[in-house]
């Protein structure tokens, strides 16, 4: 294979990116070497099994991917900002909307949410770590290897271009012969295995590692939503695994799962994809609901209204999420009866979701509301998400959907669901739990800039898309003529996207500013919050709790705080058992990345040779009998004294 086939050449935009990526990599390596940080990185981060550090690495990766996916979005908006624009050609536009979709859902939303789960859930249930710390590290590194492999497509070999749903026959070899869609199949497979492991890990963690007295109906609502999300992951991700395996076999080995010519069935792909893809929507949105619930209760200074109905709503949504996948293809030849049934199940989801919305509103009612940054995001979420929800019910009607399926109306709808539902939640959560991760708050004033720019920009970007959609603009159109009259709407939308980008820039600046100048020592409970994670120091010590807390009620921390019963006796401190770091997770994941890369290019001999690395990693792992170590009681005492003062 010649070099010009391996590297993407000929496009000035990509050439520029190649040079930028190359220089950044060299710069990073040089900088770390200059600062002599390699050993520190390896010991403290790359081999860590601490859930909080893994969570932070997830969040950092998520922010980076948000940048990548956001630039994709801006490029699309630039291309459609005026009629007959010639900024990107059709092929390049296809590649960009494909990577935008995949990156935002799988490599931005998922790691952000899983990152926050990782940081918060063990603390919320009073555990020392997750059930399987080493597996947790493996999950992260597999996700990371998948994400990096997927991003490589952009400069090496060419990006996938069949949309994030990659429908067959378009995604088959016949119509997209390049390696782009191989990247899609293999990178998602690697990341997906990691996600499945996360799901299993959190099911076990939440079932088995709750502090004494923390019964199911005393569980913080974010932990509840994480638990339900994890169950959906376990139930849905294997379907994606199979679908992607079929896709790989069709593309790499010439089988006929989806090609009609030899008895395949493209509808099989659609069914499998959405059997995973629809629950996936709830995998990303349920944890977000949990975050909003915590934040709204904290800053309204009230307990969450209708706690039990919230729990039932989450479980109900999870159950229904499995029964609605056909609404993604009403127009592809189902019978009227099938469409009607799926129309009904889809609309039923509005019921538990409505319950949640009203619970949030009733929590706010008569509350003493504090307009902090996390709270602002939560408040903005409610109306924006409701617009997304109501247009969702419009789309759920099969007959009406024949009018607006595959139009910009749909695109506007799901951005109105996913951006308030996931992105606002992630921002709210990052501001809210930042002190628990780093021991200081993000700047509230810069945060307000971030909030207003982003929320206004978001509405300006996506509101016009409802109207051009109803006016007949189909999605994925890379250009349009002036006579359509969409120019003004889409120009407006493009400006909105720039405002949104400015909001994101303010967020990044906020992180930079706060790292340098924010006030340290904000205390263990800077927001006057209600749940258990605030009972320990900020940042949380790596053993989490000096003494495993005992729980007597819902919002136990809040009531014990009011009663002044949070002290720690010196005699309660015992040596704490902790798991050791491990090199196998990162080693196995890098090996997966290498094998994946060779598979993408269909260099099978190299792939087989390098898969020996995976086997070596697995063998090393099974022969690893390291049972961890104990932190001596004196060390724990020292660390607790630092933030509590003298112990009782």
């Amino acid at each position, binding site marked *: 294979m010649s070099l010009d086939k391996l590297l993407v050449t000929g496009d000035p935009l990509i050439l520029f990116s190649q040079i930028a990526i190359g220089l950044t990599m060299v710069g990073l390596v040089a900088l770390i070497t200059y600062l002599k940080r390699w050993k520190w990185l390896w010991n403290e981060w790359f081999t860590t099994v601490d859930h909080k550090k893994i969570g932070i690495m997830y969040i950092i990766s998520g922010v980076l991917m948000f940048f990548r996916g956001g630039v994709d979005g801006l490029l699309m908006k630039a291309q459609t900002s005026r009629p007959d624009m010639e900024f990107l050609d059709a092929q390049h536009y296809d590649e960009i909307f494909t990577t935008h979709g995949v990156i935002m859902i799988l490599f931005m939303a998922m790691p952000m949410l899983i990152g926050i789960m990782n940081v918060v859930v063990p603390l919320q249930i009073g555990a020392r770590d997750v*059930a*399987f710390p080493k597996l947790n590290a493996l999950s992260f590194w597999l996700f990371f290897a998948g994400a990096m492999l997927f991003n490589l497509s952009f400069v090496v070999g060419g990006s996938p271009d069949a949309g994030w749903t990659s429908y067959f026959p378009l995604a088959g070899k016949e119509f997209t012969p390049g390696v782009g869609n191989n990247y899609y199949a293999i990178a998602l497979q690697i990341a997906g295995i990691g996600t*499945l492991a996360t*799901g*299993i*890990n959190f*099911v*076990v963690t939440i*079932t*088995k*590692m709750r502090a004494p007295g923390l019964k199911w109906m005393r569980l913080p609502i974010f932990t509840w939503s994480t638990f339900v999300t994890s169950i959906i992951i*376990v*139930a*849905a*991700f*294997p*379907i994606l*695994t*199979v*679908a992607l*395996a*079929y896709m790989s*076999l*069709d593309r790499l*080995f*010439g*089988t*006929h*799962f989806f090609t009609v*010519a*030899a*008895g*395949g*069935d493209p509808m*099989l792909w659609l069914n*499998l994809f959405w*059997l995973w893809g629809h629950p996936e929507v709830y995998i990303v949105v349920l944890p977000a609901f949990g975050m909003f619930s915590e934040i709204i209760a904290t800053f309204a200074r009230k307990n969450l209204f209708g706690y039990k109905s919230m729990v039932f709503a989450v479980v109900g949504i999870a159950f229904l999420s499995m029964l609605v996948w056909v609404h993604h293809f009403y127009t592809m030849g189902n019978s009227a009866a099938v469409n009607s049934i799926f129309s009904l199940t889809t609309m039923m989801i509005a019921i538990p979701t409505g319950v949640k919305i009203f619970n949030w509103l009733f929590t706010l009612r008569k509350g003493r509301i504090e307009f902090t940054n996390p709270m602002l995001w939560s408040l903005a979420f409610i109306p924006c998400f409701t617009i997304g929800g109501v247009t969702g019910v419009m789309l759920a009607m099969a007959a009406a959907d024949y009018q607006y399926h595959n139009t910009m109306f749909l695109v506007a709808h799901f951005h109105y669901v996913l951006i308030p539902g996931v992105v606002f939640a992630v921002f709210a959560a990052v501001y809210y739990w930042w002190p628990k991760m780093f021991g200081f708050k993000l700047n509230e004033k810069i945060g307000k800039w971030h909030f207003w720019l982003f929320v206004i920009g978001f509405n300006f970007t996506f509101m016009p898309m409802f109207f051009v959609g109803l006016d007949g603009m189909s999605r994925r159109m890379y250009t349009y003529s002036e006579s359509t009259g969409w120019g003004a709407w889409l120009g407006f939308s493009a400006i909105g996207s720039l405002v949104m980008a400015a909001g994101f820039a303010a967020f990044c600046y906020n992180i930079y500013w706060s790292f340098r100048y924010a006030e340290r020592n904000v205390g263990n409970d800077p927001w006057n919050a209600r749940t258990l994670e605030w009972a320990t120091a900020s940042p949380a010590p790596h053993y989490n709790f000096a003494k495993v807390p005992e729980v007597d009620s819902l919002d136990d921390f809040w009531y014990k705080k009011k009663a002044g019963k949070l002290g720690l006796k010196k005699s309660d401190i015992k040596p704490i058992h902790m798991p050791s770091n491990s090199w196998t997770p990162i080693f196995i994941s890098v090996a997966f990345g290498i094998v994946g890369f060779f598979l993408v290019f269909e260099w099978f001999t190299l792939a087989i040779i390098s898969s020996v690395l995976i086997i070596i990693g697995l*063998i090393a792992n*099974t*022969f690893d*009998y390291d049972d961890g170590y104990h932190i001596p009681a004196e060390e724990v005492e020292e660390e607790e004294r630092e933030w509590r003062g003298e112990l009782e």
Partner: protein
Amino acid sequence: MTQANTPLEYRSQQHQMNIFGFWVFLGAEIVLFSTLFASYFVLEHNTAGGPAGQDIFILKDVLIETFLLLTSSFTAGLAIHSMRSMQKRNLIIWTIVTLLLGAGFLYMEINEFIHYVHEGASIQTSGFTAAFFTLLGTHGAHVTFGIFWISLLLVQIARRGITEKTASKFFIASLYWHFLDVVWIFIFTFVYLKGMM
């Protein structure tokens, strides 16, 4: 629970969690195989002019495979029984028997596949063969993985004896082995018997 009545593999909290976690993983495996089965049922009759199931399946070979794998599940049970009564030697012997039966199953299955390819039914022939080979191949790959995995555990048992940790590892591997047996029963019924009817 008193220590004496609790089986070795369940004695520490971490090992209990490992076993419970593996059950959750088996839940995911059930979804995986259900998806493979469902896809097989969708594509079963799409032979595109190539051979169909009844043209190529040989009942005798499949019966031998079934016998080998079902027996191996029984001997895996005997191995766990030996483990519970702390008989290391018996544990090793029954495990080796289990692995040999598993290897025999794999040998038969590979021969079966070679035979199909000679009959003109390769994985690239039709929608039916794609779904058939992928379902069977996934099961076979699981058996292969299981053989290597359990062999490595045998080394650990031989070196370290039956401890809480090796016992819990071994118990999990036996759950996996029985699971593969259950999947095979479905394959035998809904792929082979149904295909030959």
